[in-house]
Each structure stands twice: as structure tokens, then as C-alpha cells.
């Protein structure tokens, strides 16, 4: 090397050496910043992404009928979820996810937002009850959206499909309105009963969610469990329903719209409660299809979501005559022996009121009037009383209040009064005497629910005991599966005069023995009851009426109890637009009584419709 070059080169190499150590010093500073100054922050992040608290969904209690048949079962199901900590923050990621899964992007974005604000708890469920193709889709989508997870959780299966749709109701995720209405009562994403007994018995059926602290790897797979609090399952319970009787009610109603209620006179237990058309609660379990189902069902003219047994308000027609007769006898405007002449029609306040039999019934006492369902007799009774007298009697015997059945949103039976009209019809608040005449035969403003009507006939059957219809029979002992009976709701005594009762009971007996429902009499059991035919529209010309569309036909009713000697059950049957009560409602009641007293023990519950997907089922064994 050129001797002059060496010192220069050495100087420059010295500079490089300084730069090399400078570089090392710079990197030391960078790492000191990350590892010493910001250590706590990064340690927290590392901990948060590796240690997760996962909720363990508590299974809801089972629901059994009074004989221990399962009405609702739990199966394991897979849900596609996003855990709370993993919720995506970027709008475009949410939008892409919605597109990949075929969801409404706006709804999903709103949901993600509310879950993020709510803190810890159940994961956001994107798709429920994944089947084989759903699992395959979930795996594909997970490749693009690593924050998705698959959760194992119990799901409801309603056995018998439509058998007890309205009585059972269904479950679903708690909605925003309910959370706003009862702050603190529910957690976001909680599964609660939405309708029917699932809603009414929610507090008993729901369990307490557990949780576990786990170590997860980058894919969200559980690597270690640091400990968990097990979920406490909800209590299983028995209902008063009898699945066999319920099945009879379902089959008897067939395609007709209407309702059937059967009450156990011992304690007020509901043996059957069927609203037709029914619905299959299993349809409501898939959260994301619910909007669609709701819309479809809400628009349907047959209103399958309406529980006609507790929410349908029908003109009671002639079944109401028992209350009018009771009011008249108590008030003393007639005696049981008082004869009223029926000429087929009668003029009150300048208007002709017709009887069902145009040729007239002739002279009748009360028992005969009930048996023949003579309208003129009860017009006459009504004309001798004020509407407030009828209302007061209805109130005295509990017909104006809700029955108190343990189902949500029960409608109140409507018995008109002067005060009621002032409130309900402010345009025309005055009560006209002619309106009282219509009330006398259960028309006009009178409206009863089938459950209310059944309760009134239960009152007649028990000679004045006012029972509280209920579905809850008792809890199940989880070890022995035995029923722990719950005390029945209170029974109230009413001052029903035995002499008056005997007249009414005699009248009901005559109805089936030789009156309007004679065709529905049973040889072995004395069933008693009253037919009713409630007009939907009024027509002058009967022939014209007969040609009208089915929607304008009368509602048929039948209410009563059996057996007469020592009543055990009371019932009410309503068949919409079916014509005369004697020909369509009474035969249904006959089938119920026939089954309950003659054809039991119970036929087995039908198996659930369709194949249930159990992703944990062992694979079919390969042939050797």
C-alpha cells in the first residue's frame, strides 16, 4: 500500500468504527425505549391477547308435561361467533364480513357497535346452529376473518313441533327495547324466553352463565385452562299440560282457526291450551332468519302468532246466557219458574230482535231457555235489567279480570258498562237501552277470551270457586327426576247461591241431553255445556248469508264441564267462522272429554319432525 495512503485510510476506518458503535448504541436506545419505558403497556397487550375470559353458556331447564314427556329438549349446537375482545373495529372489515356471510351490513355494523360498547359477556352470534355446510362455510370465511370463532352452546329443540307452540313460546336473543325497558335485568346477547311459557317462566328456566380463563394461541385455540366457574343450568320443570290431550285438541281443530282450553278443576291447572293455527317454535331459533319469519307471520291473515286462547277476544254468543241468567236470578227479576213466551221475535224500544228459531219456542222457563238457547227469553231478561247489573255480576264472579294465567300478554275479557262506554266510545258516550238487549245474548260489545270463558264455566262446575288457570306444575328434582309440586295459585270463593247454581247446572245438562248439543252427548260420561254462535256480521236474508264467504260466517263456541256428577275438567272451544256452535265446537269438546275420561292413558308424544343435526354424533361405523 502507498505509505501516504495508510494514515488517511486509518483515520477514515476510525470514523467507521465510531459509526459502528454509534449504530449499536442507537439500537440499544430503541430497545431500551420498547423494553424499559413502554414495557408495561406491551406486557398488558401480550397478556390480553393470550389470556381470554370466555363465557360458558348455561343450558336452560327442560320443560316436561305433567306425565314427564319432554316438550323442550336441549341439544348441542355450533354457532359462528365473534368473541367480545375480537370484535373488528374497521367498518370495511365489518362490511366485507357481512357480504361474505350474506348478512345485512347495516344491521351487523350496528350490532358490532353495541357489543363493543357493552364490555364483557356472551359473544356476538353471527350464525346459529351450523349444519355441515354451515361449518364448511365458516371454515372458509375464517381464513379471511381470523377473529371469527365457533362456539359450542346448547340450543332448544321443541318436540312435537306445532303441538304446543303458543303454550311453550320460544327463546331468542334479548332485544334492545326490552333492555332499555328493564335496565340491568339482562345482558346483551342473553338468550331469554320471548313468548309463551318460555317467557313467563324465564327466571326459573334460565341458568347462570359460567366463565373460564384460558390461554389461547394466535388461532384462538385453547392451549391451557387457568380455571373456570361452571355454568349453573336452569331448573327443569313440569307443566300442567297433558301432551296427549293437547294432541287431541290439535287434531280436533285440524285446519280450523280457533282455540281450545281445558282446565283441571282441582287446582286450575291447564290440561290443554291450543291456539290454531299453531306455529313451530323451532322456526324461531335461528336468530338471523327471525326478521324474515316475523314479517311473514305478521302479514299472514290467519295471524298464527296470536295466542287465541289468551289473546283472542270473541263475542261469546249464547255461552254468555248463563251469566245473564245468573244476574237475573240474583237480582230477582225472574224466578226459575218464570215463563217467557217466544214468538220467534220480539220488539224492544221500537226495534225487532230475532230469535234463532223463526217459528218461536213458545213458553219457556229458564232451564228450557238455556237448553233451547232461546234468544227472546234472554232479551226479556236483559230488558228487565240495566247493563251495569250484568257488569256487576260479571265482576263479582271474576269474568271482568284477567285470569292470571302464567303466559305473557293475556287479554282482558270485555263486559260493557256505562262507565266503559264513556271511556271507550267518546264520540257517543251514552248507553242505549237497546244495547243491553244485545248484551243479553252475548253479542254487541261483549268479548271474552277462551281462557276467561273456560274459567267462568269452571266456576259453575265448582259451584262458585274461582280458580287461577296456570301452566306451572312444579320443579323437577334434578337427581331423581321427580316432580316437586309447587303450591297451586289461590282459589277464591264466590257467594254463588246453591239454588241458583242448581238451575244453571240443570240447564247445561239439558243442552246436551236433548237441547242444541244433543248430538255430542256421550253415553259413558255426562258432559254438560252451552253452545254459542257469535255473529260476525248481520244479514237480513238467511239465504244470502249462507252463500257468503267463510270469513263472514259465525264463530262457533262451546263451553262446559264434565262429568256432571263430580266435575273434574272445564273447557272452552272456539272455532272461527265455522257456523253453528252445536255442529263444529261441541264435537271437539266431545273428543276432549272422550279422550280424558275414556281413552287415556296417554298416547306417546310424536317424535320431532325432520332430522336434527348433532355435530358431535359419532361417525357411522365403517363396515368391516
Amino acid at each position, binding site marked *: 500500500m502507498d505509505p501516504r495512503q495508510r494514515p488517511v485510510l486509518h483515520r*477514515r476506518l476510525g470514523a467507521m468504527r465510531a459509526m459502528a458503535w454509534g449504530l449499536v448504541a442507537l*439500537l440499544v436506545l430503541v430497545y431500551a425505549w420498547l423494553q424499559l419505558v413502554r414495557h408495561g403497556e406491551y406486557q398488558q397487550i401480550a397478556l390480553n391477547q393470550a389470556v381470554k375470559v370466555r363465557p360458558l353458556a348455561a343450558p336452560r331447564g327442560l320443560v316436561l308435561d305433567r306425565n314427564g314427556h319432554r316438550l323442550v329438549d336441549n341439544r348441542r349446537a355450533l354457532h359462528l361467533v365473534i368473541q367480545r375482545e375480537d370484535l373488528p373495529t374497521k367498518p370495511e372489515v365489518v362490511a366485507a364480513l357481512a357480504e361474505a356471510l350474506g348478512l345485512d351490513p347495516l344491521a351487523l355494523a350496528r350490532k358490532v357497535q353495541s357489543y363493543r360498547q357493552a364490555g364483557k359477556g356472551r359473544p356476538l352470534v353471527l350464525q346459529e346452529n351450523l349444519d355441515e355446510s354451515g361449518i364448511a362455510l365458516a371454515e372458509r370465511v375464517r381464513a379471511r376473518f381470523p377473529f371469527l370463532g365457533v362456539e359450542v352452546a346448547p340450543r332448544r329443540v321443541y318436540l312435537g313441533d306445532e303441538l304446543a307452540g303458543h303454550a311453550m313460546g320460544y327463546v331468542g336473543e334479548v332485544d334492545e327495547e326490552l333492555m332499555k325497558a328493564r335496565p340491568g335485568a339482562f345482558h346483551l346477547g342473553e338468550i331469554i324466553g320471548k313468548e309463551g311459557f318460555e317467557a313467563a317462566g324465564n327466571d326459573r328456566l334460565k341458568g347462570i352463565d359460567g366463565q373460564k380463563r384460558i390461554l389461547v394461541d394466535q388461532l384462538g385455540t385453547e392451549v391451557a385452562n387457568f380455571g373456570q366457574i361452571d355454568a349453573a343450568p336452569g331448573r327443569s320443570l313440569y307443566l300442567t299440560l297433558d301432551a296427549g290431550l293437547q294432541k287431541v285438541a290439535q287434531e280436533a281443530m285440524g285446519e280450523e282457526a280457533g282455540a281450545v282450553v281445558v282446565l283441571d278443576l282441582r287446582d286450575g291447572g291447564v290440561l290443554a291450551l291450543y291456539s290454531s293455527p299453531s306455529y313451530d317454535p323451532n322456526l324461531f331459533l335461528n336468530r338471523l332468519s327471525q326478521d324474515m319469519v316475523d314479517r311473514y307471520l305478521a302479514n299472514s291473515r290467519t295471524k298464527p302468532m296470536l295466542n287465541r286462547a289468551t289473546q283472542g277476544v270473541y263475542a261469546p254468543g249464547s255461552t254468555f246466557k248463563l251469566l245473564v241468567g245468573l244476574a237475573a236470578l240474583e237480582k230477582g227479576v225472574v224466578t226459575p219458574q218464570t215463563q217467557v213466551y217466544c214468538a220467534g221475535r220480539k220488539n224492544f224500544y221500537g226495534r225487532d230482535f230475532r230469535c234463532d228459531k223463526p217459528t218461536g219456542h213458545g213458553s219457556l222457563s229458564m232451564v228450557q231457555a238455556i237448553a233451547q238457547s232461546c234468544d227472546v227469553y234472554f232479551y226479556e231478561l236483559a230488558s228487565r235489567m240495566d247493563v251495569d247489573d250484568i257488569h256487576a255480576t260479571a265482576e263479582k264472579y271474576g269474568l271482568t279480570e284477567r285470569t292470571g294465567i302464567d303466559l305473557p300478554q293475556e287479554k282482558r275479557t270485555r263486559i260493557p258498562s256505562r262507565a266503559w262506554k264513556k271511556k271507550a266510545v267518546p264520540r257517543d258516550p251514552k248507553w242505549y237501552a237497546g244495547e243491553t238487549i244485545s248484551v243479553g245474548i252475548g253479542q254487541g260489545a261483549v268479548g271474552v277470551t277462551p281462557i276467561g270463558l273456560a274459567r267462568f264455566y269452571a266456576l259453575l262446575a265448582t259451584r262458585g270457586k274461582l280458580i287461577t288457570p296456570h301452566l306451572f306444575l312444579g320443579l323437577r328434582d334434578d337427581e331423581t327426576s321427580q316432580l316437586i309440586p309447587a303450591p297451586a295459585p289461590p282459589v277464591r270463593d264466590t257467594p254463588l247461591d246453591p239454588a241458583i247454581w242448581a238451575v244453571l247446572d240443570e240447564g247445561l245438562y239439558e243442552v246436551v241431553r236433548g237441547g242444541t248439543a244433543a248430538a255430542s252427548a256421550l253415553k259413558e260420561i255426562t258432559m254438560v255445556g252451552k253452545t254459542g254462535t257469535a255473529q260476525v256480521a248481520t244479514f237480513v236474508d238467511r239465504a244470502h248469508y249462507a252463500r257468503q264467504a267463510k270469513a263472514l260466517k259465525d264463530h262457533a263456541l262451546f263451553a262446559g264441564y264434565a262429568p256432571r256428577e263430580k266435575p273434574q275438567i272445564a273447557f272452552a272451544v272456539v272455532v272461527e267462522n265455522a257456523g253453528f256452535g252445536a255442529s263444529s265446537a261441541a264435537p271437539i269438546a266431545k273428543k276432549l272429554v272422550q279422550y280424558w275420561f275414556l281413552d287415556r292413558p296417554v298416547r306417546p308424544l310424536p317424535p320431532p319432525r325432520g332430522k336434527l343435526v348433532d355435530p358431535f354424533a359419532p361417525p357411522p361405523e365403517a363396515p368391516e
Partner: protein
Amino acid sequence: MKERFRALDPRLLWVVLALIGLGTLTLFSAGRNTPQSGIWLKQSLWNLMGLGIMAALAGADPRRFFRKGFPAYLVGLLALLAVLVVGRRIGGSTRWFVVLGQTFQPSELMKWVTLLYVSQRLGSRPPDQVTRLDLLGAVGLVVFPMLLIQRQPDLGMALSFLPILLLIPLMKGVRARWIAALVVFVLLGGAAAWNFALKPYQKQRVMIFLDPSSDLQGKGYQVNQSRIAIGSGGLIGKGFTSGSQTQLNFLPVKTTDFAFSVWAEERGFFGVLIALALFGLLLDRILAAARAALSATEAYFCAGAAGIFALHLLVNVGMVAGALPNKGMVLPFFSAGGSSTLSFFLALGIIMGIQHRARLK
């Protein structure tokens, strides 16, 4: 044989052995419970082969290699051209030959061949006789293989050729107006690139570099997880094979690009200090060899090698900490890989040979 070992510079050898030790521990931990659990053994084989090559070269006269600089450079260029035609395409770029089931990356070796040839050209004459045209030619010799490598594409590798250009200021000194010109060029070029040349995804990459947490699910994910690993390691680390980021796979590509994060997480700031001190000593020893070198050519080679090692250190260790953009440059002795390991040992062998020759005199 004894002669061979005497040729090894003991102080440089201890540093290299220590770094190999740290790297092997790191790969053992990074590969645990993954399909790559044997990678530390495989890398140890490469290291042993590398040590053998280093020992062999250290005992040889380095002037023999410099004399072969030109043909080696030509062969290297041909290899770079060939790899574009018949190379194996992996992950969107064509960088590898496949020989006997092993992948071989010619660009790793070409880096050192280029340094060898450029050192020889510039060092063969006194500095005052080197013309501007010669300097321009040297720049061309460096830039041409860079362009071929960028065709693969492999920007990180291409950039690792740049330290060879350090030889020019080393020989000619640094003038203020060069620095000024460089600053102006970088600013104007950067502005022009941002406005006209860069594609949206490239701009996005720059944005992510400036704020890695802005895209946690996408490109910034890797660097962000690496920062979490390093930061959560703290002063003393989480312990060997106990880093949650590493063992639970939150840390990506942990046996190559992000191997240093594994070390930083499990051994903490103390471990980082030890590793960086060893790298500092490595650079120090290489520059000491440059100082001792008998000829300008040999001094240039050592200085250029120090530059290349320093750039790898800066870019990799800086990148995993999120302080520099993710350019995919490996860290010597930590990142697993055959071609790069053998190439680094080859350079170290020549450096030791240079020092040995100087010591003999």
C-alpha cells in the same frame, strides 16, 4: 491443519461462536411445537459447514481470491440471469435454485463476489490515480446486479449491496457538497416517487410503517406483534422457551425475519444488550482487520464487509422493533437459512485470511 486453526483470529472467532450460540438457542425456542421444531439442528449443520469454510479460507492467501474477482463476478451475473429463467418461484418471487432438494439463493453469494471485485478494482491503484470514470464504473458494477435482483423481486437483498458504495468515500474522503447533493436527491426523489411512482399499496406500506397499529389485521400485524413481543420482554425477559408471543404463534415468521424478536422477548433487555454488544465487537474486529490489512484492496474488502454486516444489523434489528420499514433482511447468526449463513462465513473466512497474512508479516 494446525496451521489452519492458527490462522483464525481468536478474538473474532469467540465473538462468532458466541453469536452462533445465541442464534441456536433462539431457533430452538422459535421452532418448539411447530412443524419446524428441528430447524435449530438443520441450522447447526449449516453453521458447522460455514465454520469449516471459514477455517479453510482463513489459511489461504486472500490475494488468490482477489485475482479471481473478475471471472467470479461474471459467473455471478450469469447465475442471477439464470435464476430469473429457471429459478424456483416461491411466494411470488423467483430467487432460488433447487439443487438436491436444497434451495440455494445466488444473490447471497453475489453480494460478496461484487464486493470482492469492486475492492480489487479500486484498490489496485493509488487513490489519486482513480478517475471519476473508474468511480462511475464501480457504481455500475454494484448497481447492475442490484437491478437483476430487483427483477426477482427482492428489494431487501438489492439494498444490501449498497454498503459496497461506502468504498468510494473511504478512498476519496467525504465532501460537504456530496452530502448536500445526496440530501437534495433523496428529498426530491422521495417527493417525486410519492406523487408519481408509488402504487397505492406501496404508499399504504409506508403509512403502516409510520403507524403500525393502524392496520392490525393486515400488513402491520407482523411488526405490531413483534413490537409487543419485544416490549413485553422487559428487562430480564420471560425466560427461555417461555415467551407467550413466540410460543403461542402470535409472532410471525419467527425463525427467519423475526428471530431477534424471539430473543428479545425471552431474554429481555439484558439479552438484547449482550447480542448487540457481540455484534458491535464483530464490526469492531472486522474493521480492525481492515486497519491491519497489507493492501488497499484487502482493507476495502474488510470495510465493505463491515458495512454489509452493519446494514443487516440495522435493518433487521430496527425493523423487528418497528423503527425501520419491513424490508426482509436477515440477521446474521440468528435467521435460519443456508445460503446466507454460508455466505457470511465465507466473507469472515476471507477477512480472517487478510488478518492472518498481516500478522505473519
